[in-house]
């Protein structure tokens, strides 16, 4: 049926020729320049970053298969103790998957993005379908945001020294959401009795959508982050440089 295919293709191309999608805004380039004028000049990727990027795009395309292989591997652990060493490089954490990457860690990361007050806490609750959990140590958040897919609630606070603390909350039962590539150490901790992981060095953060086909935005370099679970939610806190300060906030979450 190649002819039918060709005629359908021809028809689609003819349709394309007739679709008028309008001209771009006249002042587009000016508006873009205005917005990026304070941004740092983008650097070319280093060879190491390039290797990580390749590994990541490979993973992005095939993460389901990789996860399946990992689950199979974990299931086989009791039978095959020597595999443990390999698997220690990987661990999953309710919605968070950590991969350890070789190579030097980035030395610094920008502060977490500040949320805008797009919705009230009550509206956010309806959107995400769970009760937002607030840390008494920080009071009312100055920014409340819900991700476009309504899965992640982001709360931000600006502190008086100009720093920003950000806590993302999402339902721990969802598919892996935050794919982190970590170079360097991760540390286990406890938030009260709940298990937590502390990423003490800046790392890249890629948000995966549930369909696994693409991420929401270009990957973002994040600073030290504490990730923990509590009563069905996974929470991640950014903006504190040392673990005790992050833990103090995490433990005040109601």
């Amino acid at each position, binding site marked *: 049926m190649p002819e*039918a*295919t060709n005629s*359908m*293709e021809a*028809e*689609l*191309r*003819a*349709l*394309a020729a*007739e*679709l*008028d*999608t*309008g*001209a*771009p*805004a006249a002042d*587009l*380039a*000016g*508006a*873009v*320049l205005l*917005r*990026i*004028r304070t*941004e740092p*000049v*983008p*650097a*070319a*990727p280093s060879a190491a*970053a*390039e290797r990580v*990027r390749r590994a990541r795009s490979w993973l*992005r*395309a095939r993460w389901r298969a990789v996860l399946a292989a990992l689950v199979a591997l974990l299931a086989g652990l009791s039978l095959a103790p020597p595999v443990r060493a390999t698997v220690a490089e990987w661990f999953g954490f309710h919605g968070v998957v950590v991969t350890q990457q070789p190579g030097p860690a980035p030395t610094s990361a920008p502060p977490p993005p500040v949320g805008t007050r797009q919705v009230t806490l009550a509206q956010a609750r309806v959107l995400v379908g769970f009760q937002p959990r607030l840390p008494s140590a920080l009071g009312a958040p100055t920014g409340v945001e819900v991700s*476009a*897919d*309504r899965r992640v609630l982001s709360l931000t606070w600006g502190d008086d020294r100009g720093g920003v603390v950000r806590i993302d909350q999402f339902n721990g039962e969802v598919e892996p959401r935050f794919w982190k590539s970590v170079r360097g150490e991760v540390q286990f901790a406890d938030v009260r009795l709940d298990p937590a992981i502390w990423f003490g060095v800046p790392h890249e953060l890629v948000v995966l959508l549930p369909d696994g*086909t*693409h*991420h*929401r*935005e*270009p*990957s973002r370099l994040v600073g030290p982050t504490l990730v923990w679970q509590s009563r069905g939610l996974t929470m991640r806190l950014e903006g504190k440089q040392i673990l005790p300060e992050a833990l103090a906030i995490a433990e005040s979450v109601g």
Partner: protein
Amino acid sequence: MARVRGGDADAYAELVRRHAPIARRTAVLLGAGADADDVVQEGFVKAYRALGTFRDGAEFRPWLLRIVANEARNAHRSAVRRGAREENAAVLDADLLHRAGDAADPAQAVLLADRRVGLLAALRGLPEPHRLVVTCRYLLDLDESETATVLGWPRGTVKSRLHRALGRLRAELRTAEEVTDA
């Protein structure tokens, strides 16, 4: 690209101007609707911020369009959530096709326009991955490898989904014609 990385703002402005039309077309056809201009602007700003991850020697266009496409789909989703539902689809089709009536023979023009509207409606009725792949390949006129980059799929997936999508479109249109003829 070297000039942009050297801090030359005009070089980026040039890239923006060169790719603005296809970026806008991508935004509109992937459902950004009234937000298309915002989506395009956001896309270029995000692309600039992400230039550190852009590989030298790679093609800028599909890389940019992937960012714009993701923005457009997010905008579409939040518009649907805000209540601006798909009822705009029919208006949008008429709007997009307002040039289809330019044929010399008015009767011919009506027929042709009907056929195009039918095709657009059938396209809209496809499952999302199929609609995306047809939109990229034919409406945006991207090649297979560009489509793979924009959608973030392996090339084999682009090929197989495109094949299935065309099959479904043909079946849809055939059914529609039978209904009209009866």
